[in-house]
């Protein structure tokens, strides 16, 4: 190998970069350890646990969607089956007093997800695109309806429950208190995130990207795209099973909702809103969507409607998701032109917020008249009380919505100009492509 060709390869990471890389994981571990010291209430510990579970589930989904280009409408199948098997496993383990502690149990969920993905995936991964999406939907419906029919295993409507504290104690922990469950979830989240990140940096992980981009060409460099998709599907099922297992341990129950279309839809939302093009996208999405679903349901009756609107807005205006939006600004930050964007953002913020407020006011008024027309017209949404029957409110909603939109549209054009300006400077400096 000559000197010239060696230098053609990208430089191997220097010691400082490696240090930074491992430091990042170490920092994540320390943050997870210290979080309960700062937010120690039962409620926040539950929220953190749910976020951890959602992060594993969303990342497992992105192995399919973002990395291999497979759109699944039934990913909850592997999450749910992992959860059910774990509840049964806990009951069997505690009835027979088998010496297996709770921290190992999520692995049972993972292996369940893996086994079912291996079983159900061979046929569905023959094709990607529409065929795969349709089969995933069919399989999901099949499993979800069996959950209501096969009562002995799935427990019907009520589901099945278990007592997680009856297993072998480890270091005196019985995993009754939420703080212990938090640490269990946090540890598994860190392990799963590292494992899934490592997977993207293997020959299989790179061939997954190749299959996503061009499955036809993959065949002509010696790889069978079906096998690549199948292996990705199996890994995805494994990590989904771990997430389902942690959920079952957290709630001490598994029911048909675990397997259902809503669960499959939520993971698609979270992953897409976070951004499927980046490894951290689903993590951002999981955090955002968990907070949103917990927060919005307290603020408004029709929180799912807002959820849907946000999803549509992301698909239409920010297909890269939240992470994509943030990453767009990186070249500007490097070129030092990010500050040029700030004034136009500030100007656009006010009319845009006015438009959104007008939209919310209109929506809540319509909801009042369509959903509870007989109730008192003094309603409260997002912590603000108003009279849905008052013509002043209607007028205000209309002015905010229409006026806000008209002004906001102008300011968005300014944002566009500022953007072109800032990126062209970055391009001149050779930073933006």
């Amino acid at each position, binding site marked *: 190998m000559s000197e010239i060709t060696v230098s053609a390869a990208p430089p191997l990471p220097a010691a400082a970069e490696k240090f930074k890389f491992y430091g990042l994981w170490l920092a994540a571990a320390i943050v997870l350890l210290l979080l309960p010291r700062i937010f120690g209430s039962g409620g926040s510990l539950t929220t953190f646990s749910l976020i951890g579970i959602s992060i594993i589930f969303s990342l497992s989904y992105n192995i399919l969607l973002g990395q291999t280009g497979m759109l699944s409408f039934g990913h909850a199948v592997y999450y749910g089956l992992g959860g059910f098997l774990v509840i049964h496993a806990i009951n069997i383990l505690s009835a027979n007093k088998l010496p297996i502690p709770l921290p190992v149990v999520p692995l049972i969920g993972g292996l369940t997800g893996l086994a079912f993905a291996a079983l159900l995936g061979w046929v569905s991964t023959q094709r990607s695109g529409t065929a795969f999406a349709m089969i995933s939907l069919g399989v999901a419906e099949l499993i979800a309806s069996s959950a209501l029919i096969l009562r002995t295993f799935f427990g019907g409507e009520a589901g099945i429950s278990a007592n997680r504290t009856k297993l072998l104690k480890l270091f005196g922990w019985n995993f009754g208190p939420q703080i212990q469950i938090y640490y269990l979830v946090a540890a598994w989240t860190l392990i799963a995130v590292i494992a899934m990140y490592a997977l993207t940096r293997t*020959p299989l992980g790179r061939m997954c990207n190749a299959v996503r981009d061009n499955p036809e060409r*993959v065949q002509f460099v010696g790889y069978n795209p079906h096998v690549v998709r199948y292996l990705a599907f199996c890994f995805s099922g494994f990590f989904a099973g771990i997430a389902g297992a942690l959920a079952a341990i957290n709630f001490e129950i598994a029911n048909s909702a675990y397997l259902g279309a809503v669960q499959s839809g939520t993971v698609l939302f979270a992953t897409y809103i976070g951004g499927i093009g980046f490894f951290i996208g689903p993590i951002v999405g999981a955090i955002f969507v968990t907070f949103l679903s917990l927060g919005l349901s307290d603020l408004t009756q029709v929180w799912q409607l807002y959820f849907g609107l946000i999803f549509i807005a992301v698909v239409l205006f920010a297909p890269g998701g939240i992470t994509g939006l943030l990453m767009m600004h990186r070249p500007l930050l490097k070129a030092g032109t990010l500050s040029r964007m700030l004034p136009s953002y500030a100007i656009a913020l006010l009319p845009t917020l006015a438009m959104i407020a007008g939209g919310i006011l209109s929506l809540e008024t319509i909801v009042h008249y369509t959903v509870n027309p007989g109730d008192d017209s003094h309603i409260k949404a997002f912590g603000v009380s108003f009279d849905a029957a008052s013509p002043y409110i209607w007028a205000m909603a209309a002015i905010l919505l229409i006026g806000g939109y008209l002004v906001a549209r102008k300011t968005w054009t300014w944002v566009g100009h500022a953007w072109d300006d800032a990126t062209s400077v970055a391009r001149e400096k050779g930073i933006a492509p």
Partner: protein
Amino acid sequence: MTAAIELRRLEKSFGEVSIIRNISLSVAQGERHALIGPNGAGKSTTFNLISGYMAPTSGNVLLRGEVISGLPPYQINRRGLSRSFQVTNVFANMSVWENLRCAVLWSTGQRYAFWKNIDNLPDVRDRTAQILTDINLTARRDVPAGLLTYAEQRALEIGITVAGGADVILLDEPTAGMSRAETERAVALIRRLTEGRTLLIVEHDMSVVFGLADRISVLVYGQIIASGTPEEIRGNPKVREAYLGEEAA
């Protein structure tokens, strides 16, 4: 010596329509063989049949004496036959480096490994760097393939085709749509990269064909009407009438 590629009474029809009508052809090892003919003669279909993209209706394709027709493309590729595409067919969202690396992986025995760090494979790294240097895209290493210029994408296409080290290379119109200067560079590249390998090339540019090929076959309406050295083909009256004559006129 067994032929690198041999086509035996190959036929392909779509329903009633017959595209390839009884082709027999033999390409010796180390030979540069060009397939020429008017549009719609079945040149790309022939490539599709050889590379496993389509299965023949009847007849056989042999690679070094072994029947390969009916095998899926990836198995044919693993046996040492690689092809390029007429329309650029790369991994558009991945960088040039990633594109070439994917093309190198199978031949270095990585298979579907999910336990190895891809940046820790010196063999893969060296071969990818070698190909990257060969196709003169070192300066564009980290650019997504979809953002390359047309000529660069064509070079990458050839790079992906030869990266796996296949000793039988099929190139489908590698210089189509290129300027004179770009064509000359591409031909020099092809000559260099296929040194010591067997090359079957479809090309419309006659200066490329006559400059590069050891032997030429002329395909018209799904049949080979002549096969021979460039001189023989140039002097063949049937070829002049059916094909070359059009250009001479």
